[in-house]
């Protein structure tokens, strides 16, 4: 009898926990957070950026005439690589970021989310570059370190 009661109890727990809806709050993003560092002491650097342009069919300018130590750049959602041209007080530099796109339907109510993962680079003209986060999520504030 104890076994029967135990099984009925397990089944009741199963029934109670059978339904739970997916979480609609997708935290994925296609924005990359880039921070600039001094190569000699590894401290944050402030750049005078004349422009940052994404090379595409229509070149898109994101930043103009700013003194910043970090920038937030969008990745192209239609391909798996985005080319950025930096024009700063250090000269002209090109950065090609590569990535994978993954998609999933969260639910009929929540819709589709696209995940940008496996972030890397195929070319850069900076002194040094390091990818510190490979999957882009809103909460993460630093994805790429650039050293000048």
């Amino acid at each position, binding site marked *: 009898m104890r*076994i*029967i009661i135990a*099984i009925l109890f*397990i*089944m009741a727990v*199963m*029934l109670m*926990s*059978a339904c739970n809806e*997916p979480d609609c709050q997708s935290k994925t993003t*296609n924005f990359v957070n880039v921070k600039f560092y001094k190569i000699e002491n590894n401290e944050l650097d402030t750049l005078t950026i004349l422009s940052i342009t*994404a090379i*595409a069919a229509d070149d*898109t300018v*994101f930043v103009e005439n700013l003194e910043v130590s970090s920038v937030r750049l*969008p990745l*192209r*959602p*239609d391909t798996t690589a985005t080319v950025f041209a930096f024009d700063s007080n250090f000269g002209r530099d090109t950065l090609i970021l590569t990535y*994978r*796109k*993954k*998609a*999933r*339907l*969260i*639910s*009929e*109510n*929540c*819709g*589709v989310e*696209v*995940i940008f993962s496996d972030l890397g680079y195929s070319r850069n003209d900076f002194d040094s570059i390091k990818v510190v986060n490979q999957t882009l999520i809103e909460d993460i504030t630093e994805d790429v370190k650039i050293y000048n």
Partner: protein
Amino acid sequence: MSALRLSQKCSSRQLYGTPAFRDFDPPFGGNVFLKPHRIFLQTLANILLLFVATSGFCQEAGELKIPIDSLKGKFVPTGIRIGAEAVNITRSFIGEDYKEYQFQADIDFYRYFFNVEYGILERTFTSENGLYNVEGSYLRIGPDINFLHRDPDMSALFFGLRYGMATFSDKLNYSYRDKAFGDGTGQVANNDINAKWFEMVAGMKVKMWRMVWLGYTARFKFGVDTFENNELIPNIIPGFGRADETVVWGLNYYLIIRIPVRKEPRSIVLPAKTN
């Protein structure tokens, strides 16, 4: 030790109310299972189903029919149960974007069952920015142990294990909005991918009328690969459920036909005691 049990059917009230039942003394010190059982399966989750099944023991006036419980031939199957999942079939008829048909069969070896479950699923999800379609089939196999194996009706209260396998394809058409590069669309798909998982199950199967049975199975599913590295991360794995979870609960209700493959054990008839 051999055991004797009562088997001839009638209502429990009829049984308990008779002098023969009250005064019956088990011969040879053996076990006599006089426990009439009332099993109910009741309606759940908008649809049906837990039901009342009453079976019991009885005797014709003045006698008791008792099957002989012998080790000989115990593991020879007595019947095959073939069932169809009732909720899925109902939903398949009601909804246009959902088709699922699931069948199960089991065969008994004394207090153990061997189960085979097969199903097919085709389902479409429509959201504001996407259209997702999945279709595939699944197979689950595994044993059960029956805690009501002495029941004269062969009813079952069981616990068991399953190994599940699914082969399925899915695709997602979606649209996105992007302020920097402009809006666009995308399409991703998986073709004939395989999923495997394990289940712990518990449930009941109850005789309702002649060959007609009803039953339910609660499932704790685990150990699946959720395909997080695929270009399309599936929403549903046929037979498993939501693919964004590595642990999933499930519940199935079955309408079952039981086909006997051998006669019931031999029985003896005892005269009732009279004072």
